[in-house]
């Protein structure tokens, strides 16, 4: 993270010195705009985060006062807990499968709907419908029925059940996430909506065909939104909990195949009451996601285009 995440313009601040009075006034204004966020960030975010960081160095069973144990939780996690490593592998597999799948579906559908005049609202609503459900227990039961032995998928493709086979269950979880692609789709659509029509007109005047317009107008103009979806879906995928929890009825089965990272964290923290250990797991996850996100931000410089920075 850190510097890579700075909106580029911040670095240009010194250049603005001729207008330093305005700049200062705007600095004051910025803090006014930020004040609710600052308050929330300190009281509701920073404080609990600091507590959980502290807890990660303790033995804490929820009820008795935490006992300082130094790095023990971390060493135990890395050296003595094979189930921890299995959950890491499971989660990475999930991220690699679910994120591209969901984003690709969302983007393809959004592009298909973009140019539509008739039926756009209908399609948008219909494609969004699954995302209204969340991963409630009813959805989980439906999913289990569809992907069970003798369920719809088995009947159509003869694959047998998925939710009850260790090699396949995680795919069923990823498909549930992908099925609910409404959020990234709507964000893509909103991004597409924001592209000024003049750009397409200008491109058309220059003789660009549909494909050329897509590459030279749509892709660069959509890149901030694409980047947003990529970053957020990746972060969320690393923390996937609800679909895996719901489909496996909280067990992470069969044979630990859907025991993703945060589910194991939950299991350690709230079922086994090792909140110190769970907190340590949370901070390791934060570090890993942080590194991945920082890498994404760094690569973004070469492919994300911000209109506000114009053609600099």
């Amino acid at each position, binding site marked *: 993270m850190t510097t890579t995440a700075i909106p580029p313009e911040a670095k240009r601040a010194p250049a603005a010195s001729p207008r330093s009075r305005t700049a200062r006034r705007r600095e004051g204004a910025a803090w006014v705009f930020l*004040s609710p966020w600052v*308050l929330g960030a300190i*009281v509701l975010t920073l404080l609990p985060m600091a507590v959980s960081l502290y807890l990660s160095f303790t033995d804490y069973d929820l009820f008795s006062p935490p006992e300082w144990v130094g790095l023990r939780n971390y060493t135990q996690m890395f050296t003595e807990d094979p189930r921890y490593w299995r959950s890491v592998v499971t989660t990475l597999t999930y991220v690699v499968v679910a994120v591209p799948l969901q984003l690709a579906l969302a983007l393809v559908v959004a592009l298909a709907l973009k140019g539509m005049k008739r039926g756009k609202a209908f399609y948008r609503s219909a494609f969004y419908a699954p995302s209204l459900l969340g991963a409630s227990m009813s959805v989980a039961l439906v999913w289990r029925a569809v992907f069970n032995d003798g369920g719809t998928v088995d009947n159509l493709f003869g694959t047998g059940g998925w939710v009850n086979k260790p090699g396949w269950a995680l795919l069923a979880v990823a498909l549930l996430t992908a099925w609910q692609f409404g959020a990234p789709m709507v964000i893509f659509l909103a991004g597409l909506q924001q592209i000024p029509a003049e750009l397409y007109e200008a491109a058309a005047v220059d003789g660009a065909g549909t494909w050329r317009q897509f590459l030279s107008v749509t892709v660069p103009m959509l890149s901030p939104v694409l980047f947003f979806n990529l970053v957020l879906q990746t972060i969320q995928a690393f923390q996937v909990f609800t679909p895996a929890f719901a489909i496996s009825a909280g*067990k992470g089965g069969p*044979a630990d195949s859907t025991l993703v990272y945060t589910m194991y964290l939950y*299991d350690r923290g709230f079922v086994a009451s090792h909140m110190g250990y769970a907190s340590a797991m949370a901070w390791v996850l934060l570090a890993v996601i942080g590194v991945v996100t920082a890498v994404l931000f760094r690569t973004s410089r070469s492919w994300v285009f911000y209109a506000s920075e114009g053609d600099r």
Partner: protein
Amino acid sequence: MPGHRTKGFCASAAALALCAVLAGCGGSEESADGGKVVLRYTWWGNPDRAERTEQAVALFEKQHPDIDVTTSFSGYDAYKQKLATQAAGGDAPDVMQLDYRQIDQYASGGVLLDLAQQKAVLRTSEIDQGLLATGRVDDVQYAVPQGRGTETVAYDVETWKKSGVPLPDGSWTWSQWADSMRALAEKTGKPGATDPGQSEDAFEVWLRGQGRSLYTEDGGLGFTADDLARWWTFTDELRREGAVSPAEQTTQLDGSVENTPLGRGQSVTDANWDAPASGFLALVPTGVALAPMPSGEDGTPGQYFKPSMFLGVSADTGHPEEAAQLVDFMINDRRAAKILGASRGIPVNETIRDAIGPQLKDFDKTIADFQSSLDGRLKDPPQAPPSGDNALQSTFQRDYDQVSYERMSPREAAENYVTEAKAELRS
């Protein structure tokens, strides 16, 4: 003019200070509401239990006009999470329903009140002494059992009868049980039972049938990897023969009767607790009957009457006496008992059990009859399991998954489990 920035900063600082002040004034004071004492009471359960509990609570409020009880309930898993968060936040409800597995953790964490302090209003004389003892940790009574339940083999009567295999009678050993399951599988073409290998409860019954126990008196592990390897070898062989459910079926257990192999029509029997077994009636409309759990080869019974739910009082309650009165009412009051029926298991108060026995209807009566057929034959329940058991219950099922999906031998998985269990119980 850095003043502007400072101003923004001051604003945030002021807001923070405000929070600090609020924090000072706030806190979970159980303040009197119009001179009334307000008690918070929570439990887990289904809507039926909630409705009956509400009625009983309304009666309590009528008898104690100075007490106002606010109630809350949720499903079991959600309840556990919520209660743990509340208790960790120093905000446990005044009166809470507790599970056998929670007692040790909540008691040793200082969440629960020593009920002996309220002996004057909370009577325990009519409760079976063996059951009452299960609410004690280090000789302090932290919780009182409300109902009792025991495990049972629920079976599809019609399918079993049709198969021609002799029906279970009053008792059977594990090897007789296994023979029946094999015969059922052969005659009906579907497994006789849910694979019991994944269930820590079933293992406990098997272990007790051999005179052992899950945990020692001082909270250590009461068995060895050899014992567990024998149990898992036993169930693994039955699974391979098709006498009990395959891994793909077993893994779909989610605690509900609907998702058991019996509930799905994929087996003839299911070992379960007696109270939830009533749910099978809706799923197997031709009828379900209850048989006892198998015993050790010498006839030693492994199953026991387990306190199905406890009531405990928060150590931080502002009104210990009123809270104890509510607990007493829920357990000992005749009229409350009439309303509550068997919604929390068959009552542990012996006088009440005898009094409401004849009024029980339908499956409640089946359960009561089943329990009375076992009365006097079973051994005393073990003391409440150590807090590590919460984690071990799921570890047990996870390790057995490795066996039933044939990724580990019973021996390897058992060694793994014992290592994990020892680490868990030490911490």
